[in-house]
């Protein structure tokens, strides 16, 4: 970066943002300090399994079955969705795509 000079205003803002210590920018290529987080809708709307950030359902995954196996693989909702590490290592074996065969999914009693 030190050999490059910004030649328009947008580029200047990018340089400013990356050099201003008060505004920390983390790029995707920088080493992540947390384990992998499944990039599903539930990541964005965190407050509870049953609701989105606004307390409603509009921000949940449409439909939930489209995302449920990602929640499972990432152990993202360990109290609401079975997790592959501990209680249900073969939860997905009953069906390959939850959105298609959701009726085959097991209810888990840990």
């Amino acid at each position, binding site marked *: 970066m030190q050999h490059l000079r910004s030649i328009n205003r947008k580029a200047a803002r990018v340089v400013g943002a990356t050099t201003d210590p008060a505004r*920390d920018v*983390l790029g995707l290529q920088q080493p*992540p*300090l*947390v*384990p*992998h*987080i*499944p990039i599903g809708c539930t990541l964005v709307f*965190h407050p*509870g*399994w*049953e*609701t989105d950030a*606004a*307390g*409603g*359902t*509009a921000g*949940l995954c*449409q*439909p*939930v*079955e*489209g995302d*449920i196996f*990602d929640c499972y*693989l*990432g*152990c*993202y*909702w*360990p*109290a*609401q*969705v*079975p*997790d592959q*590490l*501990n*209680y249900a290592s073969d939860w997905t074996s009953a069906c390959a795509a939850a*959105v*298609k065969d*959701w*009726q085959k*999914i*097991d*209810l*888990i*009693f*840990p």
Partner: protein
Amino acid sequence: MKRARFLLGFVAVVLGVASALLAAGGWSPQTGPAAVGAPADEGIPIANATTTRFCAPCHKADEKGRMTRISYRRTTPEGWQQTVKRMVRLNGLKMDPADAREVVRYLSDHLGLAPEEAKEGAFEVERRTPSYLEYAYTASKDTEKTCTGCHSMGRVILQRRTKGEWELLIALHRGMYPLVDGQAFRDPPGPRPVSASADGRPPDTRQPMEKAVAHLSAAFPLVTPEWSAWVAAMAPPQLQGRWALAGYQVGKGAVFGHVAIAAKGTPDSGEFTTESTYTYARTGETVTRSGRAILYTGYQWRGSSGTPPPGAAGWATRGGDEWREVLAVDRDWRHASGRWFTGSYTEIGIDVRLERVGADPLVLGVEPARLDAGGSARELRIYGANLPTRVAPADVTLGPGITVDRVVSATPDQLVVTVSAARAATAGRRPVRLTAATGEASVAVYTSIDYVKVSPPAAMAYLGGGGSQFPKGFQQFEAVAYANGADGKPNTKDDIDLGWVDAAWALEEYTTTYNDNDREFVGTIDQAGFFTPNVDGPNPKRRVDNSPRGTNNWGDVWAVATVQPDGQARATPLKARAFLLVTIPTYMVWDQPEVGR
């Protein structure tokens, strides 16, 4: 690829946790929390052969009989049951149900909670499931945030541990669920606070989980005066005898009846059988059930009832008519209170109060619970136990302005009188007094119903029953009438709660997303205020932009009650509404019904 990256992350975290533990002194089940700094004089010895037999292979005992991990924690029967189940499911423990019952019983009795300690988290064991949404843990917001990202705070406040044990609990979570580091246990990557806090002290740079451990080990330590006092006071409870029951079930109203409790086996066994009969005062429906219960820690009643009784031939443990019972018995062995409940999400329940029936007459409650000042004379049913069968109108007193005209009938369980309230009778709640009787009952006197509210004001139902294994979670509402009180203004402290009122029910759209038409998909509400959710699974008829298979039948709606009060000339009826969220199933059930079976 995603999974490979995830596994790498998991391995890294496990290694990180392991190295942190090694650095802290090398913990293992064999060395236990002493290695992470628990004072040597803490810990409760385990003196039960079955517990030792099953647990000792991993949890070594020291010279005082204190076993690693186990001796440094106290919790509810449900907490111990969950732990035993985890050992069986994840750690290869093999044991019979009878042995598991003995272990849970021993641990709950000897490493349990004192009544005062269990009180705040009662909602958790009483399975008031949506309550945790309303419960706010105010003592430490950091701790609440760290824990409630996944589960109810009730699970946490019903535990007592040494500091080392709280640290190990955090380590267990990080090992089992590696993602918690990025979710709630650690702050997101980025700059740490550098400026001093408002009080001039250095910035608090601890991670949320470190703040939580510091708080929990101070607020919920293993050794407490409450527990020491309870251990000294605890005795095999003698609950056998006749008890009166008063309760309330949302949507169905007041419940009155009695429970005959008999000791099972020896009088000191702490196990009981029950025969319960109760009547819904509003409808007259009478229910008779047989049950059994275990009393843990000298006061924690965990039971179940059914017809036929639990365990008998033909009795189904799930999907049958089992009602579970969670009660806390007072120190005097004369009162108990809690919740009886059923439903896949334990969403249907009666708030129950039991009182031992002695020699005195006992009043439990009245129906109807309100009297219209200036209205025509009406029957008032007084429910109780041991009520006198020879009663004169003068024996019943409801205060100035209310006349008891005559006694219609009198049995030991129910006294029926006719009363009339004068137009000038002062509005307000007033006690119903029966000469020589104990107990409390009250009736609200009013001149007009001024507004109504829907109870509960916000609620949740779960989609289910669409050919999957996931059951429906229902929701019952009721309309409650209010009078404005002396100041004539609604929603002030002097308003008079007039109790349940009949209403017409409907669902209305709660607009969060344009044209999502939730009302059409979420389910139906009947004229008793009982909401039945729609089936789970994607609905092909409900399309949104990015879901070719359709989306779920979820949504947010208003449950609207329309009330036309009797005898009141009103151009427009009274209306009230409650928020209802109809949402996706929970795919795991963390529940311990075994403790009451």
